[in-house]
């Protein structure tokens, strides 16, 4: 590494941005790629992995590369799910995609700390080759195996590039030998463990997809559950799931009103140098302020779309 290499660090914005929905778009579907900014998702994931048949891998990679080069996706955050380390496509995926500067690489089948470091080295090499500061491209690993879950803390802490982690529902339940249910108790421990790992590392955590695209009741139930657990967002496999998830993330009027009062009181307290403040006879400390900020951020996003 030459001495004049620039490095960009992860910012607060990188790990607090509103990412309620992450829409998977198959990398070989030009119409959907073109329409990506219209669906209203906070983030789109152009998929080169499971959503693309083995004989379409090259064409999908080229299509996504060219789309990222030439289309304007507006406010929608764009990421790309590449093929996992150890496949013949991994290196080509990075080589073609990194120069087009997606916000992040979504990394499937993350299992160990060491593997993340290996991948980050590769990304760094491509960044350097393309004259980009090291750390430009963020990373969002998906944990899809029992081994990965056990290593979740190390994975989340492995790199400064990581902005969030998520469980991969289908692969995980298969690896565990569990059945997938609407209630989702088979994933409860895993979801909780990943949440802890993410928060421990100061990053976000996003839930896996709800696969039955016609079952809005089940989707609503699952989304409410993961919001209560503390999740920051949920992946979607169909654009029709976006609106419902956004509605689920919308705080209630009472929550918004209280959050506004807390933030207001906190600002005044800071200006006046007051240490401890109370709202509704309850003591307000920094964690409460943080939670209120998140509520207001979600409310603002919810009003927009």
């Amino acid at each position, binding site marked *: 590494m030459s001495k004049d290499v620039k490095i960009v660090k992860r910012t607060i914005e990188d790990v607090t941005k509103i990412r309620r929905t992450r829409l998977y778009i198959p990398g070989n579907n030009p119409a959907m790629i*073109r*329409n990506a900014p*219209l*669906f*209203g998702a906070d983030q789109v994931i152009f998929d080169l992995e499971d959503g693309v048949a083995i004989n379409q891998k090259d064409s999908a990679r080229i299509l996504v590369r060219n789309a990222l080069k030439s289309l304007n996706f507006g406010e929608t955050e764009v990421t790309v799910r590449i093929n996992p380390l150890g496949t013949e496509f991994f290196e080509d995926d990075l080589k073609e995609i990194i120069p087009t500067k997606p916000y992040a690489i979504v990394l499937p089948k993350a299992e160990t700390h060491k593997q993340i470091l290996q991948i980050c080295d590769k990304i760094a090499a491509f960044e350097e080759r393309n004259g980009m500061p090291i750390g430009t491209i963020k990373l969002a690993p998906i944990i899809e195996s029992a081994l990965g879950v056990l290593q979740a803390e190390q994975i989340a802490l492995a790199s400064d590039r990581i902005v969030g982690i998520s469980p991969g529902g289908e692969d995980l339940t298969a690896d565990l030998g569990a059945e997938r249910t609407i209630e989702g108790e088979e994933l409860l421990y895993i979801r909780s463990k990943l949440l802890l790992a993410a928060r421990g590392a100061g990053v976000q955590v996003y839930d896996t997809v709800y696969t039955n695209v016609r079952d809005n009741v089940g989707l609503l139930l699952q989304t409410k559950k993961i919001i209560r657990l503390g999740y920051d967002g949920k992946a979607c496999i169909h*654009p029709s799931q976006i609106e419902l998830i956004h509605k689920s993330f919308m705080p209630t009027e009472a929550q918004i009103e209280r959050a506004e009062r807390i933030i207001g009181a906190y600002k005044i307290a800071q200006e006046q140098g007051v240490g401890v403040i109370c709202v509704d006879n309850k003591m307000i400390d920094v964690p409460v302020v943080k939670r209120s900020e998140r509520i207001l951020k979600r409310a603002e996003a919810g009003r927009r779309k």
Partner: protein
Amino acid sequence: MEFTENIVGRKIPKKINGRKLQPFMGLGQYTMPTHKAATRIRRRLSGETKLLQSIDEAIEKSELKSGMTISFHHHFRGGDNLMNLVIKKIAEKGIKNITLAPSSIHPVHAPLVKYVEDGTITNICCGVTGPVGDAISRGKLKGILTVRSHGGRARSIEDGDCRIDVAFIGAPTADEFGNLNGVDGKQACGPLGYMVPDAQFADMVIAVTNNLVPFPCNNIFINQNHVDYVVKIKEPIGNPDGIVSGTTRITRDPIRLGIAKTCVKVIEGSGLLKDRFSFQSGAGGITLAVTKFLSERMKDLDIKGSFGMGGSTSALVEMLESGLFTRILDVQAFDKVAIQSLKNNPNHIGIGASQYANIHSSGAAVNVLDTVVLGATEVDINFNVNVVTESDGRILHGIGGHQDTSEGAKLTIVALPLLRGRNPVIIDRVTTVTSPGMNIDVVVTDYGVAVNPECKFYNKLMKLKGINYMKIEELRDIAYELVGGAPDPIPFEERIVAIIEHRDGTILDVVCQIKE
């Protein structure tokens, strides 16, 4: 050929095929005729029968000769057999040089291409979808295609511009005295609205049915006064599967749903969405979704509308039945639910084409319409709309009620995705002007909404929050950027194959033969 330019900037020949053409001048600017055409006086004495046994016999009785004009309705849509059947018989009799003036031609009429090529049919007056339109674009029709809107067609028949010698009316049910019913029988299709001017003004009116019932039949849509003969035949005049769909499903495409939601926001923002609101719906993907979202919004705001206008669908019927509208005015029905509603619900009212949309009448229903949501094949930066020619220049659609409702309604919204396949839909100049831009208020696309600066709701709409407003030129720029630039101009031959009439009878545009 001498040309003049009309007010939408299109070159119009002064004369074509012996007809003097008046260029389009804008709403109410032309000199209109003073009287409608007179109809033939008929006489039936007691004991005379109207009943005939075959199409052949009907053609003979009608005294149809070469050079005459005949008409049909398109209420059987994709299930129509009658027009193919009758024209085959006409051709077999060696009759030539027919002007075909039905209310529409559909892909099911592909067999007519042969009769266009052999000179049985030499002129056509109507909207055309499918292979016949394609053949006309390739120069196969010896005369010319005159494309009129539904209201324009009614006007042309009543004014005498288009004199129908023989009208063949496919009747789902008829009695032997010539009363026709559209809601019973295998080919039930709802109102026979487009055939009302033909029944009233054609020199000879022949009803053809598979379902003859004893006089008098009920639910009479066209009455015995107008019908010269009734023919009962065994061969099916229509295939029920092609006539109606079951119930049309709302699209799940989130892009189209998004466009529909925006339309409802615009309607609400215009201030028109209040008690006594009236609305025309279509059966297309986006407009059907608009109907659904509009219903929900009307329920939320507790708004009681006055009437919904059809093409009726189950979605519109649902609005009637849930009290969101007090009446449906209906010129054609698209599904079984709508047909049943017309039959059974006294608040579902069938109307004729003139009552629906004829500008030369003392009261077209389109004039009291608050809002209509329409589609388009192309829209240009002057808001001119094309619904007739495809982006390769071929004639592939009719105008339907587009011109009539867009001119009549207080707020006309054109809703469409910015790209269709790889073609930009908002462009510099539409291939063919079929509705003038002065009648289009708002264009709603997936990328943004453009309001015509001439729209009387402009200031009100621009204040509306949560709408991604853009200039129409900006939408065009996005469309061009997405497809890699402005499309090349379509190469045409010099020969004019079709003229596009405005609903008032003046000429909006012409269509030339495509270069092959």
